């Protein structure tokens, strides 16, 4: 009988050599005349253990990792195919690894478990139950369930999803659209990528529910070009879903139509901003639109459009399957449900941590992350991508919910957490924030287009100790202008990392200039 092995095809696992491990296994199996079936799953999100190989045994799946191609002959020589406990790479049952066991995986329940190319595997793991329920409901009732669940936009802006959907539902139009923002450009984030590579049918499921809810018959997924594997897997998923009647003219026999099309970004960070993304989908430069009109009323091609992040859409099937109350029971205050957090940067145990809102930054970094990768003391943590604030150790007890993060003058954003050790120079990080804004600005509004370039120059003067005090004041003024005067979040939030760096790490802006340091030596 064939032994079934899982080796992730997730991009991060590939970057750590998963394909080479799979290849070595095939070669060795042939040489030893072993009958192996290799399935390329998504990642469970424990990246320090990738490539993590799982073998199906009578006692369940047993994991080994991190596996290198050189480990393969040894593994096959040992009793590995029967779940050998004595092998140094033995990890036991993956779901018993504390990192996974201590999570509350609703959205990522299937990621890393199923075969992402097999729609039957998705269905066998409770897939399409949400859509099934939705086909028997009125659009307004679906929208009410989403509203009642308390789901807020997971892309960063945290706008209540149900309210957005209700606006689109209430619009009269011959054509409405569902658009998925899969332009996950924030450094430190990879949850969209993981779910598209590990559980692509979940996104198809969630977007189809949105289509039924608001009466839209067409959807687009805008995927960044940096994610070719996600694109390929989503493409396969859409083909399978069409073939099986989960997409197309008659979704699950409901008589309602919904079609999905994939589009590729072209390396512009700004296209993660929703109006810029819509422009790009229309075949234009990714220039931000002034709001109003809201995309919900005048969106893609001028039609009412639901535009949500991947993580918002993929939360919806759970809500429709298990009920709004079930989802709402997770979390606290006005942040309900779970948040897939992404632990990244200088961290020992980087990966995906899905938890109910309310866990603190320190708990995630210490209990899950295990401290810095370098072993040096932690100095700063950037939460929420390149537009998120840098937090010092003193603020690590901030709970990860939308309001608490805002109160600490930061934002949760898309849930990326990037850890820095004590080698970081926050004046350089502040400079990079401005530099990045200058590179990626769409150029439509002045504070962002010009302010970012001036910001780099002012920070350079501060670093060079030229009129330092005056330039620090000038920088504060520039930040205020960008905050208040920018058209969208790129220019409007770039001051967050800059101001937080100055506020929490003033010493980094007060060092002798490079020239003075050189002279002193």
């Amino acid at each position, binding site marked *: 009988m064939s032994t079934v092995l899982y080796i992730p095809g997730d*991009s*991060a696992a*590939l*970057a*750590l050599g998963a394909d080479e491990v799979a290849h070595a296994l095939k070669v060795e199996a042939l040489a030893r005349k072993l009958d192996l079936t290799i399935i390329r799953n998504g990642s469970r999100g424990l*990246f*320090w253990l*990738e490539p993590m190989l799982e073998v199906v045994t009578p006692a369940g799946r047993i994991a080994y990792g991190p596996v290198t191609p050189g480990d393969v002959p040894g593994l096959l020589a040992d009793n590995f195919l029967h779940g050998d406990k004595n092998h140094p790479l033995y990890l036991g049952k993956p779901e018993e690894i504390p990192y996974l066991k201590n999570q509350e995986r609703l959205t990522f329940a299937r990621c890393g478990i199923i075969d992402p190319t097999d729609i039957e595997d998705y269905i066998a793991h409770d897939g399409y139950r949400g859509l099934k329920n939705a086909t028997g409901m009125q659009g307004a009732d679906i929208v009410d369930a989403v509203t009642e669940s308390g789901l807020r936009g997971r892309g960063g802006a945290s706008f209540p999803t149900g309210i957005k959907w209700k606006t689109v539902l209430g619009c009269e139009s011959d054509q409405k659209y569902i658009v998925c923002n899969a332009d*996950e*450009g*924030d*450094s*430190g*984030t*990879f949850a969209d*990528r993981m779910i598209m590579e590990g559980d692509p049918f979940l996104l198809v499921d969630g977007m189809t529910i949105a289509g039924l809810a608001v009466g839209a018959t067409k959807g687009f997924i805008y995927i960044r*070009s*940096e*994610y*070719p594997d996600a*694109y*390929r897997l989503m*493409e396969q998923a859409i083909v399978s879903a069409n073939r099986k009647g989960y997409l197309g003219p008659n979704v699950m026999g409901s008589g309602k139509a919904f079609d999905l*099309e994939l*589009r*590729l*970004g*072209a*390396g*512009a*960070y700004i296209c993660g901003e929703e109006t810029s993304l819509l422009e*790009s*989908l*229309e*075949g*234009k*430069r*990714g220039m931000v639109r002034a709001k109003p009109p809201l995309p919900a009323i005048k969106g893609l*091609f001028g039609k009412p459009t639901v535009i949500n992040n991947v993580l918002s859409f993929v939360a919806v099937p759970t809500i429709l399957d298990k009920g709004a109350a079930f989802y709402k029971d997770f979390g606290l205050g006005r942040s309900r449900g779970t948040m897939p957090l*992404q*632990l*990244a*940067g*200088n*961290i020992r145990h*980087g*990966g995906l941590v899905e938890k109910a809102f309310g866990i603190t930054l320190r708990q995630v970094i210490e209990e899950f992350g295990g401290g810095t*990768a370098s072993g040096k003391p932690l100095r700063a943590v950037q939460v929420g991508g*390149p537009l998120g604030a840098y937090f010092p150790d003193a603020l690590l007890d901030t709970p990860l919910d939308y309001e608490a993060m805002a109160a600490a003058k930061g934002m949760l954003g898309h849930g*990326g957490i*990037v*850890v*820095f*050790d004590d080698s*970081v120079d926050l004046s350089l*990080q502040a400079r*990079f924030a401005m530099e*990045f804004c200058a*590179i*990626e600005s769409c150029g439509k509004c002045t504070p962002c287009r010009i302010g970012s370039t001036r910001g780099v120059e002012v920070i350079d003067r501060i670093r060079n100790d030229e009129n330092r005090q005056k330039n620090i004041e000038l920088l504060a003024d520039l930040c205020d202008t960008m905050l208040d005067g920018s058209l969208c979040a790129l220019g409007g939030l770039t001051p967050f990392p800059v101001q937080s760096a100055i506020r929490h790490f003033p010493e980094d802006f007060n060092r002798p200039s490079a020239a003075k340091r050189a002279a002193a030596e």
Partner: protein
Amino acid sequence: MSGLAAANSPARSWDNDAALSIVQEKKSLDGALMPILHALNDKFGYVDASVVPVIAEELNLSRAEVHGVLTFYHDFRKEPAGRHVIKICRAEACQSMAGRDLEEHVKRHLRIGMGETTPDKHFTVEAVYCLGLCACSPAMSIDGKLHGRVTPQRFDALMAEKRS
């Protein structure tokens, strides 16, 4: 699969007829300009300026509009890249793991700056802002293949493979 091989496929010489047939094949898509530019970039390794009036004519746009889109997006090349394309992540998660040092090492190793191609046209080095590999930083891609936790030594070894 439009656009995905763009950075990796070796440049083929530009062919006006083939370009026109790509434009005509895709022009009926909603918002066709991006898929068209991706397909051209994919096929030839770059988008030749001579195609701008052709696209404008077919899509009933002005040349300025087409030029504007072509030049707005980082992915669309104006000229062919080197035989091997190295994309280094410059974003924060990679910075936290000595990504800046790696970037300097790469530039020193190849004796070129970001966005440049070696005189022998073997290597092009470009910045990328996040490959989604932030839990295994620093990251880069070489000819589309992803690499995580790259040290200068590892990079040298990868380059030796490409040269051999």
